């Protein structure tokens, strides 16, 4: 049977990976003449030390939950969606259209409209590569990468030529009307009397992200569609035997994936910027790949990994701000985490499996 208990697989390995990544990052910092312990202190203080810090960490985490779920859903059908970035950009267009074109009476209705619009835009943007893969065999990795560039160009065109208000120099839409502004954590927690930093960007969309985790879990492990997606992902010949249409699975899965990536824009475009600007998603689509990888494509894992990456993002920003560590060094630290948790997973798994086997033999 299995060589390792499940808890070691899902908890111990990520923790060891994380420790090794921190060790590596510490060595890099030492090599550049910084004190790694002090740096860690700054990161923890800046990423988790105050309600403001949490407000930023969870704001970033919300983006990563949506894009992480997007990548994870696609991977269950053995589709590698590298296009979450572009789908998120198009989702932003969807949010802007919904917020600017409809006179919403209240934010609670606006958020539903924006969510649907973002999902439709993101989903349709993923539909094109999906269709090309299903019908023409064009590899989804290649096409989704290309569609990131096209999405950036489309956004550029729309902002400069179509959506920019007259007489403004900046390529951005007008600010969204006040009725579409989402409540921040300070607003929501204020109702129950808990104080929270009012200048932190975390907002209502975080709750939507948590809800999305639950719905994705339900989809993948409880519905017929999820069953078919997983079956197709494990064995295409098996799916053909069972009468599961590969075209349908590829198209539907990619549209769900694209919709999830698009919905991220409810957080950053609607909840934070309250208007649409260039490069609104800021690479969150790519972080989503690492989040899905580290979270083992399971919604709970994605949630935890997204919070971790949110912390790294926010703590890293504080690092460059307070210790004059260059921004690039922060990227190096994040890259080490991705390297150890994703790519070098097998490096830790092998020795650990042997250790468990030896321990079991010793007991027997």
């Amino acid at each position: 049977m299995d060589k390792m208990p499940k808890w070691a697989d899902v908890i111990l390995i990520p923790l060891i990976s994380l420790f090794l990544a921190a060790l590596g990052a510490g060595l890099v910092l030492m090599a550049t003449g910084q004190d790694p312990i002090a740096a860690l202190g700054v990161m923890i203080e800046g990423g988790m030390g105050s309600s403001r810090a949490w407000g930023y960490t969870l704001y970033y985490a919300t983006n990563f939950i949506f894009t992480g779920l997007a990548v994870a859903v696609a991977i269950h059908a053995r589709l590698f969606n590298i296009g979450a970035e572009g789908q998120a950009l198009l989702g932003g267009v969807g949010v802007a259209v919904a917020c600017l074109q409809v006179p919403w009476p209240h934010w609670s209705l606006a958020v539903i409209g924006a969510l649907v619009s973002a999902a439709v835009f993101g989903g349709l943007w993923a539909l094109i590569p999906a269709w090309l893969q299903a019908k023409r065999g064009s590899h989804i990795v290649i096409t989704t990468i290309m569609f990131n560039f096209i999405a950036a160009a489309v956004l550029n065109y729309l902002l400069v030529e179509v959506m920019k208000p007259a007489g403004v120099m900046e390529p951005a839409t007008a600010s969204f009307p006040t009725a579409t502004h989402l409540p921040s954590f300070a607003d929501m927690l204020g109702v129950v009397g808990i104080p929270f930093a009012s200048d932190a960007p975390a907002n209502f969309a975080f709750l939507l992200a948590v809800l999305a985790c639950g719905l994705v879990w339900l989809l993948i492990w409880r519905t017929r569609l999820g069953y078919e997606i997983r079956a197709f992902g494990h064995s295409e010949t098996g799916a053909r035997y069972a009468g599961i249409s590969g075209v349908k699975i590829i198209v539907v899965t990619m549209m769900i994936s694209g919709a999830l990536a698009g919905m991220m824009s409810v957080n950053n475009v609607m909840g934070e910027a309250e208007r649409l600007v260039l490069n609104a998603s800021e690479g969150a689509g790519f972080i989503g790949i690492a989040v899905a990888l580290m979270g083992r494509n399971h919604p709970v894992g994605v949630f935890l990994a997204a919070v971790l990456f949110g912390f790294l993002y926010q703590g890293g920003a504080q690092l460059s701000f307070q210790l004059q560590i260059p921004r690039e060094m922060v990227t190096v630290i994040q890259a080490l985490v991705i390297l150890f948790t994703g790519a070098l997973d097998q490096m830790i798994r092998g020795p650990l499996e042997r250790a468990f086997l030896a321990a079991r033999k010793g007991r027997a």
Partner: protein
Amino acid sequence: MTEPVLELAGISKAFGPVQANKNIALRVMPGTIHGIIGENGAGKSTLMSILYGFYKADSGTIRIRGKEVQISDSQAAIGAGIGMVFQHFKLVENFTVLENVVLGAEEGRLLRPSLARARSELKALAEEYGLNIDPDAVIEEIGVGMQQRVEILKALYRKAEILILDEPTGVLTPAEADQLFRILARLREEGKTVILITHKLREIMEITDTVSVMRRGEMTATVQTSDTSPEHLAELMVGRKVLLHVDKAPAAPGKPMLEVDGLNVIDSKGVERLKGVSLTVRAGEILGIAGVAGNGQSQLLEVLGGMRAGQGVVRIDGAEIDLTGRHSNGQTRRARGIAHVPEDRQREGLIMEFFAWENIAFGYHHNATYNRGALMDNAALQADTAEKMARFDVRPPNPWLTAKNFSGGNQQKIVVAREIEQNPKVLLVGQPTRGVDIGAIEFIHKQIVALRDQGAAILLVSVELDEIMSLSDRIAVMFDGRIMGERRPEETTAQELGLLMAGINGKAA
């Protein structure tokens, strides 16, 4: 004279907690054909891999002609005079016979002199052992039987005195198998020693001098072939009495349930795989399709099972089904009462990473009993799986094991349980007992016959002629995408079927 050429003592090998070989002792006499028989997973292949240097035994000794040897890799095995013919040939497809024989045994950096030397030696070997073959033929252009000869020649060229053949007849027609046995007999005459690994009792009885039986990693018996019987060997293999012949009442065929008329299939490369196949299976009968693998049987099952498009007419219970449209798939076939035990359970019939209870719904996951509103009813699935596992004796009876954690026989039982329990009108069965141990074969055969007796029409495809002969009520032979003829099992012989399988039709069908 009576010193054994090969002697194993106390060979043990464990993979983690699994003891694949336990204290094996074996004596093989020179100039004999020694059979090794056992169920899948009995440890035959592990033992031979130790002998050929792929694995290192945990303990025990190997003696060749009385001298203890260490076999650390395949080079050492070749040096000790051991040659091996694998089940899956290890030949370079676009090389000639000569190049394949020399490959790995080149002398010096220039190829030409060694090829010339090899050519004359090959000629001598071919004459000595009756292994006629064109040294300049390209491997991919010659038949499987010929390819096997190349493997044997390769071993002889490397001065092998002991030749091990692993399941050599699995890919051969009966005629090719006969030729192989003649070659093996000739090798024995010339003083070589042959070790034949197989799970086919008939081959053991036909050609070996001595036979050793393995069960669960142990060598349970070694007997003279002339002193034993197939029934006795089967009992030694399984550890209990086994019914070798399927016990079934004569068929009581009813109305035509599956009618195929002029079915054609052209694959994605434009090759015609089925050329006007017509057949009828009545309710309550088993039609067996015999044939060498690759003559269109797979495509026939795939079209009928909805896995690929075809041209022609197929009727189920009198009503025609759509073979090409958007709705021609496994789901609509199942809705019409066609169940399908596919040829490849690991790639088609099961999702190996799914739990047994997820697999029990595979293909039937839209059934109302497995669903509760928008969600799948996992509790119902788990209960259903436990029940089917008990009825079909799946071991271990644990619905929470993934499919890959079951043995081949138990995986197949899961598939067969799933398909048979749907009470289909038509059951398509492909290679139902491939890689399945004897005990499970007996059980699966019984279930198929029981379904027939309930009035289902059964189309059985198998490359095992014994299985076709014992299970079918009628036999159709396929060759090159056509039905070569139909016979009744009680009125035909393996020889006649073998000719049909090779495309030679003696009398009108």
